[in-house]
């Protein structure tokens, strides 16, 4: 067995002090030499367990091999034959729990940095101009039309696959910019909008028609789509309905859902106000409530938008935080102050109805609950007041009721998720499939893409064979 190189190339990053001033991307990306060195560590194992860890089955050893042989166009083609959004995935996939977790080198040292290499290949293509696509598996036009609702990762992946299979695809997107959470949620400093734009353009270049500002359930219903000449529908509507805490005072001005806060900043570019005309109020002291990736993104956006102090208020301890370790570290490096084992009880406001403070209690960890995490319980007599002038509530989202409530025959679960077969995405309504956050609740970009891919295969099968998936 050859000696294994366990030195993983670190990701160059902007200095924490510089980051507070800018929305520029934090992770700078590999240089050619570092990328080639990282690629050389891969032993191209024939069993390729890494591929099984990727929900869209990227041919990892093959693209890594092409990279180290300096055949970049080949690397691009191999990558894109399985993943239509590599620049996005290379940046935001939780690789540590997916492909990289299965990498054999990980048993001896640090696994191959698959995500970073994927990003390197995607960025190379963006810098050098589009590589001619590999021949689509079936370029024969099928004469069938498919409607895709939502342009998030699930919808984009389903569309790309369906278009490659020869179907005519139309995406209906309610917002004015495509991308779903990639456009309105994940901030510029983690995922620059130009990357999303380029990869959306790639999907459109496959022949996909993008209809923006089409709110399905309002502008058009699923029934109307199906009687308008579309033979099948894929619902990739995400989980975009914000949840609140239902505490007294929660409607004071200056209290935002994470969706509103991030949408104002990312989609509407409120950090460039007044050149961009959507305002946002970011005071001196901002409290973000929650402990997931969305809370980290909100806190880091608040810092970059001029807040003096940003607190992250979370009711359990750091161990239970659902956010990725990397994001927690980035937030701490940038100066986000963690207020752990703390829970808000009520919000305080001034006579103008704007938030001025938050009454909190301290928590202790008790017995494990159903999720296996120790349950936080209130410490008696621990009430205290935090002075804040902006609050972001980042405690989760659920699927939006608009499409289910206007589509007869579509069953939803008690949590509002659309009921669909896990393998094919077939819903309870004939000719309608669903996948991504709409069926699972908030999950990940790559799991949404995996669901989009599986549904596209089922829809293709249905359209060609004329049978249900």
């Amino acid at each position, binding site marked *: 067995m050859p000696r294994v190189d366990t030195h993983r190339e670190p990701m160059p990053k902007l200095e924490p002090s510089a980051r507070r001033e800018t929305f520029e991307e934090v992770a700078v990306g590999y240089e050619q030499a570092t990328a080639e060195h990282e690629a050389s560590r891969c032993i191209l194992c024939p069993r390729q367990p890494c591929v099984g860890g990727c929900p869209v089955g990227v041919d990892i050893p093959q693209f890594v091999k092409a990279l180290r042989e300096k055949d970049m166009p080949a690397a691009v083609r191999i990558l894109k034959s399985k993943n239509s959004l590599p620049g996005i995935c290379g940046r935001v996939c939780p690789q540590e729990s997916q492909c990289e977790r299965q990498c054999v080198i990980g048993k001896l040292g640090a696994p191959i940095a698959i995500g970073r290499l994927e990003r390197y290949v995607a960025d190379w293509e963006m810098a050098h101009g589009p590589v001619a696509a590999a021949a689509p598996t079936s370029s024969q036009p099928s004469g069938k039309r498919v409607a895709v609702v939502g342009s998030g990762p699930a919808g984009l992946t389903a569309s790309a696959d369906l278009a490659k299979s020869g179907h005519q695809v139309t995406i209906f997107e*309610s*917002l*004015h910019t495509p991308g779903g959470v990639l456009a309105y949620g994940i901030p510029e400093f983690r995922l620059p909008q130009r990357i999303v734009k380029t990869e959306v353009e790639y999907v459109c270049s496959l022949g996909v028609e993008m209809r*923006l*500002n*089409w*709110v399905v359930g*309002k*502008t*058009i219903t699923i029934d109307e789509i199906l009687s308008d000449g579309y033979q099948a529908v894929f619902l990739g509507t995400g989980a*975009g*309905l*914000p949840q*609140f805490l*239902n505490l007294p005072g*929660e*409607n*004071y*001005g*200056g209290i*935002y*859902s994470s*969706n*509103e806060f991030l*949408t*104002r900043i990312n989609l*509407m*570019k409120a950090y460039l*106000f*007044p*050149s*961009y*005309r*959507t*305002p946002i*109020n970011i005071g001196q002291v901002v409290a973000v409530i929650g402990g997931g990736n969305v809370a980290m993104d909100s806190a880091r956006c608040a810092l970059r938008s001029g807040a003096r102090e940003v607190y992250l208020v979370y009711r359990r301890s750091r161990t239970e935080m659902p956010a990725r370790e990397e994001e927690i570290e980035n937030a701490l490096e940038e100066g986000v102050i963690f207020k752990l084992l703390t829970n808000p009880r009520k919000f305080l406001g001034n006579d*103008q*109805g*704007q938030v001025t403070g938050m009454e909190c209690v301290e928590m202790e960890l008790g017995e494990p609950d159903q999720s296996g995490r120790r349950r936080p319980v209130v410490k008696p007599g621990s009430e205290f007041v935090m002075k804040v002038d902006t609050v972001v509530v980042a405690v989760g989202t659920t699927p*939006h*009721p*608009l499409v289910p409530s206007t589509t007869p025959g579509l069953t939803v679960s008690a949590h509002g998720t659309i009921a669909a077969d896990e393998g094919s995405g077939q819903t309870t309504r004939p000719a309608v499939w669903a996948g991504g956050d709409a069926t699972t609740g908030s999950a990940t970009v790559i799991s949404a893409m995996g669901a989009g891919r599986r549904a596209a295969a089922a829809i293709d099968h249905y359209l060609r064979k004329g049978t249900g998936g």
Partner: protein
Amino acid sequence: MHRILRKEDLTPSVHLLEIEAPAIARKAKAGQFVMVRLDEAGERIPLTLADWAPQAGSITLVFLEVGRETNMLAKLCAGDYLTDVAGPLGQPTHIEKFGTVVCVGGGVGVAAIAPIARSMNEAGNRVVSIMGARSSNLLFWEDRLKSVSHEFIVITDDGSHGRHGVVTQPLKEVLERAPGPDRVIAIGPAVMMKFCALTARPFSVKTIVSLNPIMVDGTGMCGSCRVSVAGQTRFACLDGPDFDAQDVDWDLLLNRLRTYADKEKQALEMWRRQCASAPAREGESSGHAQG
């Protein structure tokens, strides 16, 4: 991109735009609104569907110049384009044969009440319309509202046209009649709707208002438009904008409307300065450039 087919200045500060939007025109119902984004840097603002023509594929919006977006909109002309128009959003107004319906429109709210009065008329109701404005030069669509009403009252704060006073006075008189009206619908500035609610309260007649909180997406994904109705938080863009006037927490609505007052003022002043320094260019090419 949505082409502006026609522009009309209804008063010096209230303007009408007829816009190409076939998909929206096909589905529009009285009481619904659209979200408009003027250009790439623009805010998304809600505007009520004042009219629509499914055959011609057009919708009509009427707006008052208040801040930067509406001032910029006012500069557009026929042939210009709006970058984004999404809709029709919100729940349509509940139209039914109730008997006698009072439709109160204040200020630019007249544009929103007109299609409702028309639909109520078509549904077989006796429509009593009350139209109010600060002064005669702010009145518009008097004939249009009159033509769909069985009884029509116009009133101005300064008495320059019609009766002298505010809309709650004739509203109270109509409510005091025997038999009284079966339903009241009031649309206008939040303060006006609040006082209409107070006026109607002793008469226990169902009173509907169309709330106008600040919105971002208009589709239920942000919560900016949250209002408190009967003690419950509701999203005006999704559950409304129509709500029972007696259940609305008016102070909350008024406070939330003030959230960005400083920033909006700053933005409007900045824009006015820009216009002053380049008046000719602004007037001619804004909008054309995006076509």
